[in-house]
């Protein structure tokens, strides 16, 4: 059958090609996509051609293959040099092409079930385009541009993501207004578990480690479990090397504002010994001193971070095994000026408008400070089971040890030797997933998931109680695809048992709760043709109340407010709908999502009528309460490139978040924002390659939607920041180092972000000049 059809197809291609030669002065590129095993043509495969010389990857054109797997593309001004072929159930194929020399070419795709479907199928546009959810994928090249910053700080580049900031050292990602316990961060296949409830508790992750970051906006509890009610950030390390040899990369960054230096060394290889063992080691460090606002130094905001990771893996025809271990360590200072005693102290600090004591720059990290260690072990194993499919096991162990040191012992000037609080959170998790062999256009998986978590207080201070929790879940996800249409549906049932050892005036009482919920989601993706695609989904999600929401009792010094937990809180649940439109044309690139997330029994802090009177003064009091809330908005980006060397882009996020019961806006929601980008790109000039120059202007509006009278001060004014970035590759011998210089906040503008926890006391940091160098070495794959 195949051999008979083949000449017919080539004849067809030949006719089309010759027709095109007469038609116009443009080139065409034709080829065929086949299954590498059976030789059958694959209909409906997505084909994307692009010029790799264009760093911003906007010069792309695409089509889909016909029923015989044949495709034909018209090339206009652009001469692409790479092809990406995407077909569900097959490995994404990336290859170099030579349209000026090649007449036609057959591309063989490998069924994905021969390779393991690892936790991530690499291929950026593939994931974004074929998703029914609102998704942004940052690839390694894009991540190079944000290396050296904290993880969340870099994710500000993604539409819909903002950052809850406690100085330069601590930043938490906020997706569509939700953060902390409402977001899941998947780190090397395991949900990262730290003390997420704290606004000043950043994720303990080496920002150099991920090679790909996926940001999934909106609830995804079906895939990721109960905390993913606001979204998911999935960090994937680089795939282990598949060819023999050794290679690596060295990253070096310098930041002028806080005189930060950061470096990371990665070495990886695959050896013919030990049945083809692949391995990787990475060590990173970041060291910073005090950050500086335009007017003054933010005393004690430095940090010292060290992390290391090692991975080993085997890959065979029938399966693969991979183990990943990482250890992250940081010591970070808390701004001295934010250390206050009472509400009056806070009001005095506000009135003064700048810190009480102005210091000169220093690298010293004094109390108050945080000291965090996070160790994570992730073991993955996959085994092909005959023709039935693939069985995958993911095991995780992680231990988060957090120590926070107060400024001084209560009545002396000596820094305390003992931490004011010291918590160790240990989490074990195990997932068993079965991915069945695609049948009748159905792709899917089902499985079980368990976890066990224990929180142990090591020394003084009972901010949150010790607790132990077990989670168990069963889930199933199925996807049906035909031609341009993909439908998907999934469900997860999850059960949680939790016992807390609550301490009240010397006595410990045990409080046991169980929570359970069924969540489900359905989605659709439609490839409309001409580069347009549409994704939409609707789903339910839930989250059990967090340990702080249940048991907090009393004063929080950082925020000068009393917070009272409520042991009777129930789970919050959400119903959300989301629609995304994407377009990848020759001159225009567009991606816009709109959403509505209705959360029933949303847990929030409700202000008390009476002040909370303590021996340290009277403070605003808040109870954890539940109400119905609604978050809706849209975000997106748009690029237009009138010429090959220039493009203009616009990216923005808009959010309306309301407490429907109280009929008022939700507090601390990110302000609307927009970024305007002008980018120039030259393939080669001045002896350099891949030059780019980018000028960005960030417009952040004032958050005018806030509940009156709950915060001590109204939201700060909006602001405009200008940034400039220049980068290029400089070939030296066998290696091609990449460097960039960027200036953030060029005009050294004074501003305060509504999402900075230091906004009561001080401005945000001023101008920052950042130098980045990345040097790859060794044998390329």
């Amino acid at each position: 059958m195949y051999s008979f059809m083949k000449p017919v197809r080539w004849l067809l291609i030949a006719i089309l090609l010759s027709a095109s030669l007469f038609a116009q002065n443009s080139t065409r590129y034709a080829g065929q996509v086949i299954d590498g095993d059976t030789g059958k043509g694959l209909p409906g495969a997505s084909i994307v051609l692009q010029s790799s010389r264009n760093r911003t990857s906007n010069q792309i054109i695409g089509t889909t293959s016909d029923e015989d797997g044949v495709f034909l593309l018209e090339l206009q001004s652009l001469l692409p040099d790479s092809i990406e072929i995407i077909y569900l159930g097959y490995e994404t194929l990336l290859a170099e092409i030579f349209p000026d020399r090649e007449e036609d070419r057959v591309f063989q795709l490998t069924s994905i079930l021969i390779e393991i479907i690892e936790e991530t199928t690499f291929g950026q546009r593939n994931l974004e385009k074929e998703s029914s959810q609102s998704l942004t994928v940052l690839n390694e090249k894009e991540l190079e541009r944000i290396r050296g910053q904290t993880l969340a700080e870099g994710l500000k580049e993604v539409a819909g993501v903002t950052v809850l900031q406690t100085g330069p050292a601590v930043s938490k990602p906020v997706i569509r207004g939700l953060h902390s316990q409402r977001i899941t961060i998947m780190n090397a296949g395991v949900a990262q578990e730290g003390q997420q409830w704290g606004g000043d508790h950043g994720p303990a992750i080496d920002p150099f480690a991920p090679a790909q970051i996926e940001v999934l906006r909106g609830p995804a509890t079906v895939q990721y479990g109960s905390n993913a009610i606001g979204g998911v950030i999935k960090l994937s390390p680089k795939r282990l090397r598949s060819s023999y040899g050794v290679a690596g990369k060295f990253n070096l960054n310098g930041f002028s504002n806080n005189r930060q230096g950061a470096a990371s060394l990665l070495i990886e290889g695959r050896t013919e010994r030990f049945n083809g063992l692949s391995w990787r080691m990475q060590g990173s460090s970041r060291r910073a001193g005090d950050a500086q606002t335009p007017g003054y130094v933010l005393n004690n905001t430095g940090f010292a971070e060290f992390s290391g990771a090692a991975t080993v893996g085997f890959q065979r025809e029938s399966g693969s095994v991979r183990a990943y271990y990482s250890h992250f360590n940081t010591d970070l200072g808390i701004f001295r000026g934010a250390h206050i005693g009472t509400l009056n102290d806070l009001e005095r600090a506000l009135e003064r408008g700048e810190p009480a004591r102005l210091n000169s720059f220093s690298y010293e990290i004094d109390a108050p400070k945080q000291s965090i260690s996070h160790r994570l072990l992730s073991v993955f194993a996959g085994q092909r089971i005959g023709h039935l499919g693939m069985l995958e096991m993911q095991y995780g162990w992680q231990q988060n040890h957090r120590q926070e040191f107060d400024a001084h012992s209560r009545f002396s000037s000596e820094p305390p030797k003992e931490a004011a609080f010291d918590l160790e959170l240990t989490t074990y998790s195990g997932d068993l997933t079965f991915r069945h062999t695609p049948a009748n256009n159905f792709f899917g998986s089902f499985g079980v998931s368990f976890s066990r978590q224990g929180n142990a207080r090591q020394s003084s201070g009972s901010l949150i109680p010790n607790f132990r929790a077990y989670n168990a879940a069963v889930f199933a996800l199925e996807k049906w695809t035909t031609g341009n249409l993909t439908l998907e549906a999934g469900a997860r049932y999850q059960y949680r048992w939790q016992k807390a050892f609550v301490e009240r005036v010397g006595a410990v009482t045990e409080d046991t709760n169980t929570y359970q919920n069924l969540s489900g989601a359905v989605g659709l993706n439609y490839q409309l043709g001409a580069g347009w695609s549409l994704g939409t989904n609707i789903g339910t999600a839930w989250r059990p109340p967090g340990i702080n929401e249940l048991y907090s009792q009393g004063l929080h010094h950082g925020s000068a407010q009393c917070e009272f937990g409520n042991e009777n809180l129930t789970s919050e649940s959400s119903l959300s709908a989301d629609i995304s439109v994407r377009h990848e044309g020759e001159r225009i690139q567009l991606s816009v999502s709109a959403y509505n997330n209705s959360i029933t029994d949303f847990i929030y802090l409700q202000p008390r009528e009476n002040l909370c009177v303590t021996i340290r003064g009277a403070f605003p009091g808040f109870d954890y309460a539940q109400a119905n809330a609604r978050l809706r908005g849209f975000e997106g980006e748009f690029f237009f490139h009138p010429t090959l060397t220039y493009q203009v882009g616009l990216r923005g996020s808009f959010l309306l978040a309301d407490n429907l019961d109280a009929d008022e806006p939700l507090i601390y929601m990110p302000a609307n924002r927009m970024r305007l980008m002008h980018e120039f790109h030259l393939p080669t000039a001045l002896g350099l390659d891949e030059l780019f120059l980018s000028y960005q202007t960030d417009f952040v509006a004032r958050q005018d939607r806030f509940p009156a009278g709950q915060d001590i001060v109204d939201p700060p004014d909006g602001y405009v920041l200008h940034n400039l970035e220049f980068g290029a590759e400089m070939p030296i011998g066998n290696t091609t180092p990449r460097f960039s210089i960027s200036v953030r906040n060029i005009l050294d503008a004074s501003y305060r972000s509504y999402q900075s926890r230091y906004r009561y006391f001080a401005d945000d940091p001023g101008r920052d000049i950042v130098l980045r160098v990345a040097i790859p070495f060794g044998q390329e794959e």
Partner: protein
Amino acid sequence: MAFIRSILFVFFAGLIFFACSEDSVSPSDDPGEEELISRVTITLTDTSNPANQATAIWDDTDGDGTANTIGTLTLTAGATYTGTILLENALESPAENITLEIEEEDDEHQFFYSVTGDLDGDITLAITDTDDNNYPVGLEYTVAVAAGVAGQTGEMGIILYHYDDVVKDGVSPSDESDIDISIPLTVN
């Protein structure tokens, strides 16, 4: 299939590990060693009649500010008192005297006393002790009540500032208050 068996073995071994480590998180009976002030006692002694004493106790009985008992200070019109203040952590047993620590670190602490309400202007408070730099401390003070104000009420405010970032100058507050309370006053 040996491979799959070994996977399942590792997986279930992991689950057993879950089950066995049940008691690694044990509750603690220790309510926390955070140094805190839970009780403030004001004692005033009439200079002309030492038998005439006025005391008031501000007591945070559970240490987290949710159950406070606040005594009233009953003064005599026209009297002048010498006053002391006692700070304790009464959640410890026996109660820990924190006044002693303030005495040791008196160059980093200062009490600020004030009177509000009807009695504002009718009661004069003056700190009588000083630190090594000759700045007031406030562990000892005098209280003079004007004559003819019997029947009036007010409140006495007490703030203890800790000077760490800000240098103590005898008049300015700091950004760190260790206590900030007010005690009702009546005059007989």
